[in-house]
């Protein structure tokens, strides 16, 4: 059984079919990508999977559980965690505290435990502080732990958001254009980080415009255009697919390498 199964997924905004009868599945353990021109419905697809929008039709099944209709925090609790195209950090908090929020699902305790400050709770705080530092190291932000998130550079903010998402313990991590706004060196570093996260056993699905990144790390690519799936396969197969070349990359193969 696939980790994620998307069946006939459709989302209509008024008369516009942002996502139109999309079906595909994701196997556990890989790095897959969804590509497509602007407005192809990629982010809407993520919003449907993560529960931000209810679909008009179709189903999303994750590890045998129906995600369709679940609110976003419940989808996260099922093990599907996303990042955002426009980075959404908790700007007033330090980088480390942002990551600590990520441990919300794996920790316990509400207002009463906060007031009591039990031994167990303090031990848990120490533990997640150490884990948060470890994740900051993973994305190369160890020396920025105390910096308020809003004062990080754009590239650092993207990496922090990824570290925070990994803290939430996803089985499937949805990355929405993680390389947007990054320069070449930063993108190369990002590719390594994504691979490192994948090696920890996290399945990754990313939306990306940066073809160099996608072709470099994705095992398999789903192509959307005007809400429809027009191709699905290995990077090599997709790059040669005439429908993709025409709809997305232009009409000649050279466009792909431009």
């Amino acid at each position, binding site marked *: 059984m696939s980790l994620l199964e998307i069946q006939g997924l459709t989302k209509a905004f008024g008369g516009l079919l942002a996502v139109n009868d999309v079906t595909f599945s994701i196997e556990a353990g890989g790095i897959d990508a969804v590509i497509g021109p602007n407005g192809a419905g990629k982010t809407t697809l993520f919003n449907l999977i993560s529960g931000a929008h209810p679909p008009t039709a179709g189903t999303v099944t994750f590890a045998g559980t129906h995600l369709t209709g679940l609110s976003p925090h419940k989808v996260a*609790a099922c093990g599907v965690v996303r990042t*955002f195209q426009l980075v959404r950090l908790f700007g007033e908090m330090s980088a480390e505290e942002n990551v600590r929020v990520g*441990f919300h699902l794996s920790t316990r305790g509400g207002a009463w435990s906060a007031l009591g400050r039990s031994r167990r709770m303090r031990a848990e705080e120490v533990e997640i502080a150490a884990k948060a530092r470890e994740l900051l190291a993973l994305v190369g932000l160890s020396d920025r732990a105390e910096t308020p998130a809003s004062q990080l550079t754009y590239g650092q903010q993207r990496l922090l958001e990824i570290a925070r998402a990994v803290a939430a313990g996803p089985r499937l991590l949805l990355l929405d254009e993680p390389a947007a706004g990054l320069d070449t060196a930063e993108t190369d570093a990002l590719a390594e980080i994504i691979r490192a996260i994948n090696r920890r056993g996290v399945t990754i699905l990313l939306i990306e415009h940066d073809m160099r990144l996608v072709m470099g790390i994705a095992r398999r690519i789903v192509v959307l255009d005007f809400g429809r799936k027009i191709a699905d396969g290995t990077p090599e197969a997709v790059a040669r697919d005439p429908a993709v070349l025409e709809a997305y990359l232009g009409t000649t193969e050279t466009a792909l390498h431009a």
Partner: protein
Amino acid sequence: MTSLASISPERATARRRLPAMLLVACAAIAVIVAFGGYFVTVVCFAAIYALFVSGLNLFMGYTGQVSFGQNAFAALGGYATAVLTTRLHLDPLAALVCGALLSAAIAAAVGYPTLRLRGHYLAMATLALGLIAYEVAVQWNGLTQGYMGISGIPGLGFAGFEIDNERLQAIVLLAIAALGMGAAVRLRRSRFGRALGAIAGSEEAAQALGVDVTRYKLWAFVIAAVYASIAGSLMAQYVGFVSPEVFGLSMVVLGFTMLYVGGIGNVSGPLIGALIVEALPQAVSGLKDYQDLVYGVGLLVILIYAPKGLAAVDRGVPFKPGSKS
């Protein structure tokens, strides 16, 4: 290693500041004992308001929501104390607890549908809450005695023991305010507080990390209501009288002024704001006709030169929950 890791920067700062804070507390008590008189009254009101504003700060500063209706819960606490002590001759402390429980229950019931609203809509809905409380206080003659209000409320105290020394009252009220602010610090520096801060930062991101935003907003609203209710009860006990006007819209305006002058999102902001806003009119009262003008200009100057509140002035940058200071 463990002991190093367990002291987060904000805690280290708090520890460094502890001696200074104790000194300020001792100085305040010494001044109270030495001066007495109207100064003590100002301190008492400031302490009560500090508690009220701490609750508001939790909901607005930490959680990033807005409420113009916290006076409704202060009224609930105040009237609960008034009715329970004068009619049923309940102990003032027991009446305060009853009021707080009643406020929590009503906040939960009202908050559940209301907190779906955001921004201006939430502001309007909560404003209505305060207006409804006011109308109920005016119209429910049998219970509240309408505009007349209820007088003869027993003073601060418990178990038959009443604190009638004004200086002692000020110290007790300050201690209660300190307790309330200490609780706010603990709430903020926890998984619970981080979830509130996450909601203030980005609701979508908080949800994506598994935070049940609706539930945490409701908790913040209920806790803020409990703070307001306790402040209302203490007000009733301290003044010995409640009327609809005591918990009117002016309380909301005063609370907001204190929150912004002191520093929203800052733990010590409510106390600083409450002291300044309570003391400023007294300090300029000698100016007769011009006192309102000078008071207004004074507040403006503070907000221009300390836009993040007075509590954040020494740090150059605003101390927001969780950030390094």
